[in-house]
C-alpha cells in the first residue's frame, strides 16, 4: 500500500494522544498515593493485575513502539549516506528491536 509509513505515523500518533491523556490521568490523579506522586508496588500492582488494564497497556506499548521506531526510521532515512540498502537493513533492524522490546514489555505482566 502506498504511504503505509505515513499512515502508521499519523494513526498511531492520534491514538497515542488519547492513550497518553488517559494514562497520565490514571497514573497521577486516581488514587491518593499516586496523587502525592508515590510509586509503590501495591499502588501499581492493584491496577496492573486487572486483565483489562493489561490489554490496554500492552496495546499502548505496541502503538508507542510503532510510532517511536518508525520515527527513528525516518531519521535514519534522511541520511542518504546509508544508501538504499542500508535503509532496508535499518528498517529490518528496527522491526527486530521493536519485536524484542514488545516481548519484553509483555513479559513484564507475567508472574505478577
Amino acid at each position, binding site marked *: 500500500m502506498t504511504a503505509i509509513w505515513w499512515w502508521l505515523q499519523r494513526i498511531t*500518533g492520534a491514538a497515542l494522544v488519547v492513550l497518553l491523556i488517559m494514562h497520565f490521568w490514571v497514573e497521577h490523579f486516581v488514587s491518593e498515593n499516586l496523587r*502525592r506522586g508515590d*510509586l509503590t508496588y501495591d499502588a501499581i500492582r492493584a491496577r496492573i493485575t486487572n486483565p483489562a488494564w493489561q490489554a490496554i497497556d500492552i496495546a499502548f506499548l505496541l502503538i508507542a513502539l510503532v510510532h517511536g521506531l518508525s520515527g*527513528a526510521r525516518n531519521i535514519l532515512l534522511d541520511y542518504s549516506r546509508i544508501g538504499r540498502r542500508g535503509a532496508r537493513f535499518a528498517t529490518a533492524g528496527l522491526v527486530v528491536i521493536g519485536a524484542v522490546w514488545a516481548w519484553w514489555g509483555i513479559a513484564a505482566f507475567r508472574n505478577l
Partner: protein
Amino acid sequence: MKDLIRKYGGPFSGMVAHLIQRVTGLLLLFYLFLHVRTIYALREGPAAFDQAVGAFNGVLFKLLEIALLGAVILHALNGIRITILDLGLGQDRQRRLFWAWSIGVGALIFLAGAIPLFLASVLRR
C-alpha cells in the same frame, strides 16, 4: 548570532518545529525504554521493586518527570500541527500554528500539569 535568531524565530521557525519534534521524539523513545525496564522490575517482588523506584521519589527525578511532561506536550501538539498541515488546512498559517498552538497552548497545558506536580512532589520534600 542575531541573524540566526531572526532566521529561526521568524521565516524558518518550521525547521525549529521539526528539530523539536525529532529531539523530543528520541528522548521519549529513550524514556519508554526506561519505563518498560521499571515495570519489568515488578517481577522482582514488592521489596526489590519499592527499593528500585525509591530513587524516583527524589527531587531530581520529579524534576525530570516534569521535563518529560514538557517533552510529551511539545511533541504531541506539534504532531497535531503537522497532521493538520498535511491535510491541507492552515498552510498559510503554519508559523502561527507553531507559536500560538505548539508553543503557546503547549505552555499553558504544561503549566497546568507541572505546577501541581511541582507543588505536590518537589516542594513537599
